């Protein structure tokens, strides 16, 4: 034993750091997909809170929509500021959609195989991924329509303006489907994002996963209820305001100034 000596192992830190010889784009694209999804998911929740201000009062919703038009900084509304925000969100949305397409089933056979697998496994996170694909596919069209409208008519956001669009322009069925699609897609996406990169994992990953799942369903339920209540409020206002379709909302305390 005395004649033996321990072998030495060179530390990794001592060795030169070679660079990968294969493309680095898969890493970058995966990160970009996650970052764009994170940004859109957080935007979605913020957007829903702003939209639901109609449940507080018409004046509250008016104030929030004017806020994004710079009314309280510039003294007057500049609707194209909203178009700029929408353009940024639209760009993020388009990037996220293009990146997510990489993961979609590439053929009908792949789709059928995955569906068979899904039904056989009855595994929640696998099923939720499929819901993400379906809702993501629906959002290609629904969110593009909504974002396009907001991009081109940023001046039509307000208690009466939005309510007219929801009711008199018959957009409420689209908003109803979009509400479910976006809340399911975003909620599942943010949950998966945390698991994918191991955020918030802590010392007990299984417990964290259970809590994240509970948080996901709680938040999804909360935002769905909030969204449905807000949509109902816009529909009710839209019905009442239908005879005055196209007329903008002016808060009572500004009536003397605005008219």
């Amino acid at each position, binding site marked *: 034993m005395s004649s033996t000596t321990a072998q030495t*192992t060179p530390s990794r830190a001592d060795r030169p750091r070679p660079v990968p010889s294969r493309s680095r784009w898969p890493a970058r694209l995966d990160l970009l997909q996650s970052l764009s999804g994170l940004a859109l998911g957080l935007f979605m929740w913020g957007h829903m809170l702003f939209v639901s201000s109609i449940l507080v009062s018409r004046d509250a919703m008016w104030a929030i929509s004017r806020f994004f038009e710079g009314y309280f900084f510039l003294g007057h509304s500049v609707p194209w500021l909203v178009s700029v925000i929408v353009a940024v969100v639209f760009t993020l949305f388009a990037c996220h959609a293009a990146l997510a397409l990489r993961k979609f089933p590439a053929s009908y056979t792949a789709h059928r*195989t995955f569906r068979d697998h899904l039904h056989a496994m009855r595994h929640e996170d*696998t099923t939720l991924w499929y819901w993400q694909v379906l809702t993501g596919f629906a959002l290609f069209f629904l969110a593009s329509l909504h974002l396009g409208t907001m991009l081109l008519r940023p001046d039509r956001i307000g208690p009466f303006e939005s309510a007219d669009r929801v009711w008199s322009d018959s957009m409420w069925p689209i908003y109803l489907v979009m509400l479910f699609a976006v809340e399911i897609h975003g909620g599942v996406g943010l949950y998966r994002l945390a698991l994918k990169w*191991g955020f918030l994992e802590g010392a007990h990953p299984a417990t964290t996963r259970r809590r994240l799942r509970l948080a996901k369903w709680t938040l999804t339920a909360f935002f769905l209820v909030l969204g449905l209540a807000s949509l109902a409020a816009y529909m009710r206002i839209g019905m009442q305001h239908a005879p005055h379709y196209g007329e903008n909302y002016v808060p009572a305390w500004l009536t003397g100034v605005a008219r």
Partner: protein
Amino acid sequence: MSAPRQIRLNVFRHNPQDPASTPHLQTYLVEEAPGMTLFLALSELRERQDPSLAFDFVCRAGICGSCGMVVNGRPRLACRTLTQELPAEITLLPLPAFALIADLSVDSGSWMRAMTERLQAWLHAADPAPDLSRLEARMDPDLADQIYELDRCIECGCCVAACGTVQMRHDFVGAVGLNKIARFGLDPRDTRSDAEFYDLVGGDEGVFGCMTLLACHDVCPKELPLQTQIAFLRRRMLRAGA
């Protein structure tokens, strides 16, 4: 004492070597015994009812990983699955993603070997011919435990069969492959850099193709921390590749 339960086993039958064979489910009735595993039920069935039934086993103790099969839709080890945990009607299918030998027997070995060669999943030591009379370099016990934890993988193929990504991307290395890279990435005796590991798993057929469905983690019979390891490897490969 109540009468023992009759189990109805619907077993996939097909021999690809036999041109006359067509895939079908064959139903058998087996009387359940206390503590009976699926492996025992299948053994009894083969012994008493149908000697032509093909399924794999070696250790009967969840160590060799030979008896993986799809049990009522989920990949499991037959030797580690008690029939009393299952309903009276059980459907058994061979693991998908692997070449079928016959009935419930699949060639997971060829898949594992190809994956191992592709990922070079063995220790790349500084000295390929070390002096075996010398003591190995000391290793921190906690690190040794971490490596051992990942080394417990028995290559049963359950994670591969449960993976939705593998269903759509046949070149995906699966959790078993990613776990191996995570294991050698931890080992200070392995001389490979993160950039070299990136060359092995830094693509859409590797860690960046994983869609975090986590069925691999949920079905692993050895309860390996696959969720944690894949997330860790993803962060590490991002640093190496981004």
